[in-house]
């Protein structure tokens, strides 16, 4: 038996708990301890140890009575964007101060239905707007990966201070990726509007999948950009992410955009042969100024897949370069409307004013952080009379073209597309975007296309950079063919060798 129960993968823990080699209570306690010791990383914004222990005991009882679910007794972290009944949910924003929803999101309720245990709520960029987890009202999250050249002492000192120079875990699901990479939970829920699952996974050496739009219910997940938002997991292995997605996915009549299609047993796809699969390599993802090591990683990925019997096909997705600017019109437009409900009238923060308008202004000015305010203003602007056609309508047209690019590729028989997940390895906290927000937005250049097209996308570690930091590869699939992604990703994971995540120094 493993001495540190947090080192189990989700699948290993599942098997150990199911076969009663370990109890959920032991497993949960080990994670609660790990979370306590890792507070410096700031991955959790709320720990729920009592709830976790209660849930674990209940799980053990179900295991004893033979009524265990597929995730029975497995402790997970939940992104703060998800509603958790009676438990803090603030989307890491000041404006939702004190908000404890009287309802549970569909996705988390399915996890509890399947027996999972909640450890607490995970840090994130405020309302999921950010690529580094630096916009959280609760402060930045540090990656468990030490910056090149840093020793543990320097790392610990930085954790106690302003965290400057430590690496970002990516965003917006930075709490999720950091917690999973630091072994604080077996897996975590996350969400992805423009790359918020895949980029943090790539930055931390973990696996993340954004499923097809409509695969997971959005009900009970605070909306950022409704037409782009999707829930998905971050886990330490391809298999673990497949296990998680099976529980998270499914039709929900409460979400009109959710799709009524059966949920396959994704785990079965892990390890399936990819012989004869056609893998598209889009030339447009070879962008100017892309570091040589990203290019090399991509080439390596191609070789691995070819070696596994896949057919490598060069393809073209001609509208790729328009995706990022179009995304930064569509997403803020929807956000400006979605975030209008945070007005200080019914819940959360209220900053009084002399009349209703000033109450709105005071509340929203104080309640929203800089990045959120910026996107609300961009969104309001692009929807305004006189600008709507020039921005929003054109962005929607571009979106149609991007979607068509993919459709044409898939019509030609392409099964999945391989690209780098990010244009670089993780950067330091405080390093990017303070003077030019676009610098930060460029992080999403490879991932936003997938959201714009509503397709499934998976990030899997492909290796380490020259300075020893994890780099991820992205697989993009056909709608509702997540299974192909798991099969292909498993080949990469096997070929690359599981990345060894950092030992605790925090």
């Amino acid at each position, binding site marked *: 038996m493993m001495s540190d129960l947090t080192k189990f993968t989700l699948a290993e823990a599942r098997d150990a708990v199911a076969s009663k080699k370990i109890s959920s209570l032991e497993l949960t306690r080990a994670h609660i301890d790990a979370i306590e010791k890792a507070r410096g990383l700031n991955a959790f914004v709320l720990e729920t140890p009592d709830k976790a222990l209660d849930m674990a005991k209940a799980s053990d009882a179900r295991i004893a009575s033979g009524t265990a679910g597929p995730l029975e007794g497995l402790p997970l972290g939940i992104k703060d964007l998800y509603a958790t009944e009676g438990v803090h949910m603030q989307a890491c924003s000041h404006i939702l101060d004190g908000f404890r*929803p009287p309802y549970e*999101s569909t996705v988390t309720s399915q996890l509890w239905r399947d027996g999972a245990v909640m450890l607490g709520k995970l840090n994130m960029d405020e309302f999921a707007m950010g690529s580094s987890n630096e916009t959280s009202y609760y402060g930045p999250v540090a990656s468990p990966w030490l910056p090149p050249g840093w020793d543990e002492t320097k790392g610990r000192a930085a954790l106690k201070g302003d965290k400057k120079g430590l690496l970002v875990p990516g965003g917006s699901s930075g709490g999720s990726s950091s917690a999973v990479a630091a072994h604080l939970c077996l897996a975590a829920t996350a969400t992805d509007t423009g790359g918020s699952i895949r980029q943090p996974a790539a930055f931390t050496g973990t696996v993340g999948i954004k499923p097809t739009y409509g695969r997971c219910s959005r*009900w009970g997940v*605070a909306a950022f950009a409704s037409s782009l938002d999707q829930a998905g997991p971050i886990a330490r292995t391809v298999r673990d992410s497949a296990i998680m997605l099976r529980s998270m996915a499914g039709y929900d009549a409460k979400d*009109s955009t959710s799709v009524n299609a059966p949920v396959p047993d994704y785990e079965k796809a892990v390890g399936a042969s990819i012989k004869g699969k056609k893998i598209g390599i889009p030339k447009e993802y070879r962008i100017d100024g892309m570091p040589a090591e990203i290019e090399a990683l991509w080439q390596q990925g191609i070789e691995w897949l070819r070696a596994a019997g896949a057919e490598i096909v060069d393809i073209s997705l001609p509208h790729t370069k328009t995706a990022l600017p179009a995304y930064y019109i569509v997403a803020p437009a*929807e956000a400006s*409307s979605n975030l209008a409900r945070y*007005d200080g009238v019914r819940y959360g923060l209220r900053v009084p004013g002399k009349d209703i308008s000033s109450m709105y202004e005071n509340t929203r000015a104080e309640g929203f952080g800089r990045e959120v305010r910026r996107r609300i203003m961009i969104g*309001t602007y692009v929807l305004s009379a006189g600008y709507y056609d020039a921005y929003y309508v054109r962005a929607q047209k571009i979106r149609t073209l991007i979607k068509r690019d993919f459709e044409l590729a898939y019509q030609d028989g392409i099964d999945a597309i391989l690209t780098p997940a990010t244009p670089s390895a993780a950067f330091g906290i405080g390093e990017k975007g303070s003077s030019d927000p676009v610098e930060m937005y460029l992080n999403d250049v490879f991932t936003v296309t997938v959201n714009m097209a509503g397709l499934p996308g998976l990030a899997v570690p492909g290796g380490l950079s020259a300075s020893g930091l994890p780099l991820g590869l992205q697989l993009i699939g056909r709608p509702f063919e997540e299974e192909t992604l798991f099969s292909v990703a498993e080949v990469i994971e096997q070929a690359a060798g599981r990345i060894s995540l950092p030992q605790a120094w925090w």
Partner: protein
Amino acid sequence: MTTAAKPSKLIKGATGDWEIVVGMEIHAQITSHSKLFSSASTSFGGDPNSHVTLVDAAMPGMLPVINEECVKQAIRTGLGLKAKINHRSVFDRKNYFYPDLPQGYQISQFKDPIVGEGEVIVDVSASEQIIVGVERLHLEQDAGKSLHDQSPTESFVDLNRSGVALMEIVSRPDIRSAEEARAYVTKLRTILRYLGTCDGNMEEGSLRADVNVSVRRPGEPLGTRCEIKNVNSIRFIGQAVDVEARRQIAIIEDGGKIDQETRLFDPGKGETRSMRSKEEAHDYRYFPDPDLLPLEFDQAYVDELAKGLPELPDDKRARFIAEYGLPPYDAGVLVMERESADYFEAVARGRDAKMAANWVINELFGRLNKEGKTIATSPVSAQQLGTIVDLISAGTISGKLAKDLFEIVWSEGGDPNVIVEERGMKQVTDTGAIEKAVDEIIAANPEKVEQAKAKPTMLGWFVGQVMKQTGGKANPEAVNTLLKQKLGI
């Protein structure tokens, strides 16, 4: 609209004639158990915030799901307005901040409404009919209510109405007077009530009108319009049109010009007041609601709903004219409410339909109006009134006694046959009995007999005497004939 102005509609200003042009946006609350996008009840009069789901309160992460019954009601209404039903429509968000609008946007339909062009045939008077074009009908959410009278320092919000389904029915500017405006809303309400898609209760806010008014010289292009918001009774709609038109005429005749703006009608003061100017108008930033898919259905879906539609007022009116031989105006009065039409048909079936119509319109409606009752609360049932008509037709009672009988049934109830029998109200048609009375009166009044011979109009006096003696039950025709014969006139 460039049709020639009707001289009868023009109003006189200091400098000549003016034509009023009115278009209306009617907000009709859909009759449904639950709201447009949530399962909360739509019933009127609950405690504040007792009909509110998480969706209505716009809690984080809540999503709208369309209530299919509301879609069906909108389609039924479209069919009732002989309008184009759009098989694909789109919900948009209309963004603005207001405390009684929890989402910060109203879900509405902007570019692609569920119902397109249609028309309403409006009877303005017994002799005049106009057609008012309907531009579109779309679905949208109602807002909640701000309560400003609960505390000296704070306002309260009641979200019971928040999210209730409304149909906004937009007319073309085809209305030319206050009278036409009233008649249009009345007719539209009749159609909605027939369809069962809106109860039309204006006092409960189920039907409200935004009235767009402009004036122009006959034959000239449309003038600048002002929109009078939320007028909530048919009478006020008429008053608002008149008051606003006169205000605009006065301004133009004084050399001023009309500013396009939103105004409020104050029935107490009989004036309209500016609410906000065009410059202050909101930029609603409409865009398709990404939480909802486009609303799509096929023709079979529409056909199925069409099959279930009741006979509509115009068709019913035409049938009443053809089948019962009623004058168009009477038919129009009878079909105004579905219950009245049903009542009439129950009375008329197998009887003299014109007599039935007269009794329903003149006696029954007259009495109902006087007592503030409706057909549903009428003390006289269709069966009772039918029996009265039967008694008249059979000559069992006279028309005059029938009115007394109606009064008895109204106030005391009972079977008219039994009442007539028990109270001896039967008309005497037996000539022997009448002849006896005639003979007695002639014998007792020789002087009058002489006078009558010289002046035949004296006959009326004799008729009166005979009727008096027979307690009003004598058949007046028989009395006349006998008297003429006996008096030799």
